[in-house]
């Protein structure tokens, strides 16, 4: 379980301070998919970066399975599987070597790495490119490699920043099934997206973020009730306040 309480983060820029996140809080349950929905630039990536301990919030707290993300950063990172916005895989290494490298950095032994890699290769349908160097991989192959790399240590909590970004329809479908499988295994899954349909179809709990703030949250039914719209897409648009930066 992951609990975010009243997160604030401000960046210094040449034109003065910019508040990227000003008051984001929600709870993500185990065995459920929590979706962060918001237009580009709403503060989703910054929120996730604070969640996976790469950024320190100016205010507020992050607790992962009861542990404070800053007091016990290393233990928290160990329990997280993170697909950041930056997908960079090592071009001169094969997909398997990319995954193995991260397994070793998590302190796993070779047998466990092999076992978990085989499982992920199966689940993500990577068999035909797992032993190829990632140079020249398609976007989908790169994303799958990055996801397998993030999950090699079998983490209880899974954080995915725009996981379906740039993927074709078939790959997206496969990935959604994979995410539902993670949920079925009792994991706590958090994903961000600017695609309304995806969040609507996949998530048990939806957090709508706009301009660094949570404007609405709840299950799809609750969101419809809150906004008084019978259509989920209309509910999203109403919660965000505009259609800008969203995708059906």
């Amino acid at each position: 379980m992951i609990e975010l309480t009243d997160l604030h983060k401000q960046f210094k820029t040449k034109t003065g301070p910019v508040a990227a996140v000003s008051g984001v809080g929600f709870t993500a349950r185990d065995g459920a998919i929590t979706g962060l929905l918001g237009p580009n630039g709403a503060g989703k990536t910054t929120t996730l970066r604070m969640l996976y301990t790469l950024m320190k919030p100016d205010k507020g707290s992050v607790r992962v399975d009861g542990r404070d993300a800053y007091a016990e950063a290393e233990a928290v990172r160990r329990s997280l599987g993170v697909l950041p916005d930056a997908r960079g895989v090592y071009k001169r290494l094969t997909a398997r070597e990319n995954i193995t490298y991260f397994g070793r950095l998590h302190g796993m032994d070779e047998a466990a790495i092999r076992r978990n890699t085989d499982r992920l290769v199966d689940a993500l349908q990577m068999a035909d490119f797992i032993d190829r160097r990632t140079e020249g991989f398609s976007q989908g192959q790169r994303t799958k490699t990055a996801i397998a790399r993030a999950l090699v240590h079998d983490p209880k909590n899974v954080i995915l920043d725009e996981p379906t970004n740039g993927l074709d329809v078939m790959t997206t479908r496969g990935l959604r099934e994979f995410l539902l499988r993670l949920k079925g295994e009792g994991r706590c899954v958090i994903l961000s997206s600017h695609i309304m349909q995806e969040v609507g179809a996949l998530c048990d709990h939806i957090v709508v973020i706009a301009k660094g703030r949570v404007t609405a949250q709840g299950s799809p039914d609750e969101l419809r009730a809150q906004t008084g719209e019978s259509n989920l897409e209309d509910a999203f648009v109403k919660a965000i306040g505009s259609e800008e930066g969203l995708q059906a």
Partner: protein
Amino acid sequence: MSAFKTLATVMLKELAEIFRDRKIIINGLLLSPLLFPILILGMGALAENRAKTQLESELKLPIIGADIAPNLVAFLATQNITAEAAPEDPDALIRTQEKDVILRIAPDFAEDWRASRAATVEIVHDSSRQDSQIPVRRVERALQSYSRQAGAIRLIARGIDPSLGTAVSVTYRDLATPEARRGMLLAFLPYLLILTAFLGGAYLVMDATAGERERQSLEPLLATPAGRGAIMSGKIAAACAFGMIGLLLTLLSFKLSFAFVDSGPFKGVDVSMLAVGKLLLVLLPMVLIGTTLLTLISASVKTLKEAQSYMAFLMLLPILPTIILLVNPVKNALWMFATPFLAQNQLILMVLRQETITAQQWGVYLAAGFGLGALLWLVAARLYHREQLAISA
């Protein structure tokens, strides 16, 4: 997981990655071991060849007023300097570099000669031209020797012992060992070696931090539980290993090429395995200083290109002591062994001249070298812990 295991994992991955890039291996590891011997042996052969031809071959000297001093011209001919017809405009010939040196005999030469006054000859030359130095010196020497001979004859003719004119007789005893004399010829060698040590791992270390950041693989890497200090140390260790392999290959190629020289100034230079070992030890702190400094730079810039823009400046650093020593030569003092670049320069020369390096000098050197490396490591590690480092774009 232990920091050491992280370090080893990162180091192995960085090395595996770089050894898969054939072009980088050829440029970074093989090119300089191939190039330096060609440079050294080629330069030795060229210098020797030029000195030989200019010193021993016939020197054609245009003489203005040759008919005024036929005896002088005849004497020059015995020194293998043959007279050429006088040119119209001698100054122009020197300026256009058509002639290296021209001799002008003053019109009143014969008159002064007969009156036993100092007769004037003028050497026309351009002192800023390197390649005319040897011919000018040859003409000078021949003229001085003619002047001494004629002077001595004049003194004898007047019943005076010519040696009376020499109050002090100066002789020289050169105690430079043959190795040391060769060491002078090898003065450029320290720069090449220091540069190889300092920047040999540059590509790897810049790519491993600034490049990874640019290719967006640093964020996922830093989101793992592995410690940032250990990750950075692994990258530094890989670059150091790569740099040391490059140095070892370069030194071995020096050793081999010196063994094959059969003439010229480098004939008989013996780079023993002990000397190779000592040179590696001298250069090890330099490799560490170079890679930690580059890591520090790479961690503070946004792109690989920005990191690379420091290279031109960094390449000049190792040449500074050579320039300072050229302008202001100083005796070896202990403080020099604590000064980066200067210390390496002096120690490499000492190893090549087969001089003894005392335990105290080694101690000061290694402590200062590794100390600076450790300091740079600490600063780089601080930069590695900055929040912005992981965030690309």
